[in-house]
């Protein structure tokens, strides 16, 4: 390592990489070389910055200037102006929605300003493939402390006292889990890192694994000492190639430096790690199914108790924690449980990472203190709803979670409040929906996901999810009956009571929570046969508004079924019998002359 006057931190999380950030990095390096600045300026690939909406992203340090939406063509100008002449390039900076002036510095941008980084403290700051950079920012300090100064019981107590709860979904106190496993006599004991993140729209774990793999690794070594484990497994789904690659590099580097294997840091403690690739089944995220998968069997859950802390992997005591939980551990050991206690609310301590997606201006990954209001996340950090639409609901907690309406926007985000409102913390997916979203359609989407992902072991879940999906699908197609709602509630209850694992037990939630807050939308679909949001294709029809149509023929050309009639400069007409309701005509029209009609009852034949 050597001294440079400036570091260019190029975001290389999956989001930015798919927008071409490696090409930007190459172009920067080429341009810098061309100007003979390679000994003054260093280009570094970092983990995800979280502001995925604006990728590819480059942060110039020490100035703290944030460049976004970069293209390869921008690079020569950027290097010439900023790095040679010292004039930051305004045209490549972030301009907040509804404002004209750019915000040059990263720390002043609303999206970053309100976040509190603990688990993601190294994101966008270090090269995740270089162990020295992790060490430079206090990496492996906590591990050194745990291995040399603390007894296993002291580590468990510290975690217990910190109030850390599992970040994978259910929120079980991590310290309790460790304590239960620590007191088991049987050996060997195992540790597992659950990186089988499967909720639609969620990418928290992927980002942690990509941005700071050594933090997960360090947390696991500390956990191993606490419970007396000799071997650990990191379970990552194969859809996360970048996370797999960076974790493999991290493990190799740790082994080479004596931070894994025999006699770690010369303290005599031995522990090693192995990566297991998951085949991408949603149910593998359930802990007993995950155990089966690591053992090489089909990923199906089994009855609990006995809990994995007693009988887990190959019947041995095992602690399974989520990626984010493991990455939190070193911070608690390094800075102390008292410090962690002071963050968050009475029952939910610390920070939580959320993947903010859907109809939101600033799509991305955010880390916020527990107890923050939903409104602050959606409007403060997220920048509100784009295209001047209205907020309708926010879906929290993945398929097992629920949809919360606008009147609950002031709800604090903690485990208890969310559960009481009918949603759950889950692993941290947040999907924002605007007024053009149909809640029945949302329920249908999640039920389809669940009936697809149900492993089929319990009848209640296998058949129940399928039946619920069929009924809700019927409602969206206009064949729903009034009795359907009671039947849905009954099915959801049976599925909850009679299924063995979390997937089945919560499979009714998409229906139950949408019914709780959006029953009027179900009623509209069933009684009036109309879809208030104009989403359900069978319940809407596209018509041409005669007073707005100029007869430009754009819609006619766009129609894939050739069912629009009309000559140039004449009002056009859509032939309803042939229309497949694809909406292409509406998109093509520049005069807002095509509308999806939904206000009056439309007869379904």
């Amino acid at each position, binding site marked *: *390592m*050597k*001294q*440079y*006057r*400036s*570091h260019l*931190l190029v975001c290389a999380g999956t989001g930015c990489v798919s927008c071409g950030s490696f090409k930007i990095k190459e172009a920067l390096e080429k341009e810098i070389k061309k100007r003979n600045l390679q*000994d*003054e300026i260093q280009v570094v690939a970092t983990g995800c910055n979280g502001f995925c909406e604006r990728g590819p992203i480059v942060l110039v*340090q*020490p*100035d*703290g200037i944030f460049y976004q939406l970069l293209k390869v063509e921008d690079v020569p100008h950027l290097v010439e102006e900023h*790095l*040679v*002449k*010292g*004039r930051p390039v305004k045209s490549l900076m972030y301009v907040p929605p509804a404002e004209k002036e750019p915000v040059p510095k990263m720390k002043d941008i609303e999206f970053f300003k309100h976040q509190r980084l603990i688990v993601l403290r190294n994101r966008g*700051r*270090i090269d995740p493939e270089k162990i*020295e*950079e992790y*060490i*430079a*920012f*206090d*990496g*492996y*300090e906590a591990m*050194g402390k745990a291995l*040399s100064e603390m007894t296993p019981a002291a580590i468990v107590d510290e975690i217990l006292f910190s109030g850390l709860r599992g970040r994978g979904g259910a929120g079980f106190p991590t310290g309790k889990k460790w304590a239960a496993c620590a007191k088991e006599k049987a050996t060997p004991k195992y540790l597992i890192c659950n990186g089988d993140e499967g909720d639609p729209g969620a990418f928290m774990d992927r980002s942690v694994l990509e941005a700071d793999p050594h933090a997960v690794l360090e947390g696991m070594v500390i956990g191993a000492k606490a419970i007396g484990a000799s071997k650990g497994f990191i379970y990552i789904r194969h859809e996360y190639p970048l996370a797999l690659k960076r974790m493999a590099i991290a493990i190799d580097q740790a082994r*080479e*430096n*004596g*931070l894994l294997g025999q*006699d770690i*840091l*010369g*303290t005599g403690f031995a522990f090693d790690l192995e990566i297991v690739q998951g085949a991408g089944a949603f149910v593998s995220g359930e802990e007993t199914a995950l155990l089966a998968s690591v053992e090489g069997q089909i990923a199906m859950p089994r009855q609990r108790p006995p809990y994995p802390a007693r009988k887990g992997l190959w019947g041995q005591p095992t602690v399974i924690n989520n990626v984010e939980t493991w990455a939190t551990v070193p911070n608690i050991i390094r800075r102390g449980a008292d410090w962690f206690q002071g963050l968050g609310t009475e029952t939910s301590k610390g920070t939580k990472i959320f993947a903010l997606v859907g109809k939101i201006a600033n799509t991305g990954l955010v880390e916020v203190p527990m107890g923050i209001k939903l409104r602050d996340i959606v409007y403060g950090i997220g920048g509100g709803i784009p295209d001047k639409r209205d907020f309708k609901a926010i879906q929290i907690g993945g398929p097992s979670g629920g949809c919360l309406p606008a009147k609950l926007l002031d709800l604090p985000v903690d485990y208890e409040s969310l559960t009481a409102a009918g949603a759950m913390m889950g692993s941290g997916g947040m999907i924002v929906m605007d007024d053009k979203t149909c809640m029945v359609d949302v329920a249908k989407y999640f039920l389809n996901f669940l009936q697809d992902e149900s492993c089929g072991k319990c009848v209640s879940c296998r058949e129940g999810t399928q039946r619920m999906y069929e009924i809700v699908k019927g409602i969206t197609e206009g064949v729903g009956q009034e009795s359907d709602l009671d039947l849905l509630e009954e099915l959801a209850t049976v599925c909850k009571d009679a299924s063995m694992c979390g997937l089945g037990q919560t499979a009714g939630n998409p229906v139950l929570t949408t019914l709780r807050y959006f029953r009027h939308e179900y009623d509209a679909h069933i009684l009036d046969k109309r879809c208030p949001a104009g989403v359900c294709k069978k319940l809407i029809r596209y018509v041409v508004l005669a007073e707005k149509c100029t007869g430009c023929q754009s819609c006619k050309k766009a129609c894939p079924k050739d069912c629009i009639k009309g000559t140039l400069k004449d009002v056009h007409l859509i032939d309803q019998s042939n229309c497949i309701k694809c909406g292409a005509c509406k998109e093509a029209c520049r005069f807002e002359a095509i509308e999806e009609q939904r206000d009056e009852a439309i007869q379904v034949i």
Partner: protein
Amino acid sequence: MPAKKKLTIQDLAKIREKTKSLMTIRESEGRARVTVHMGTCGIAAGARDIMDTLLGEIGKAKAQDIIVTTSGCAGLCNAEPMMTVELKNQPPVKYGHLTPDKMHKIFVQHILGGQMVAELVLAVGSETVY
């Protein structure tokens, strides 16, 4: 490839010490901040040599917590090459008509030593910004 030496806790602390100073730049904090003015006028007057001298001095002195940035023209083109030195909790000091020798003197006496080189100073303090 020979096996790498296994690290001890003391080694970790040493690596941290060594690398941290190289990484402080990513946190925008340091004991001093030196801005070399590199507008067209600055570059034409030889700001590149000043920058090279400065980076060389920092390397020699192993003073890694000194942040070097560039900026555009400061408006006083006939005094180029120029630079601004900001020490923690002190007003910025501007130097003009720089040469590598003057640069060396300022580096030793002001940036490292904390005493401004009065005979070379153009101005002390920031301009008023409306």
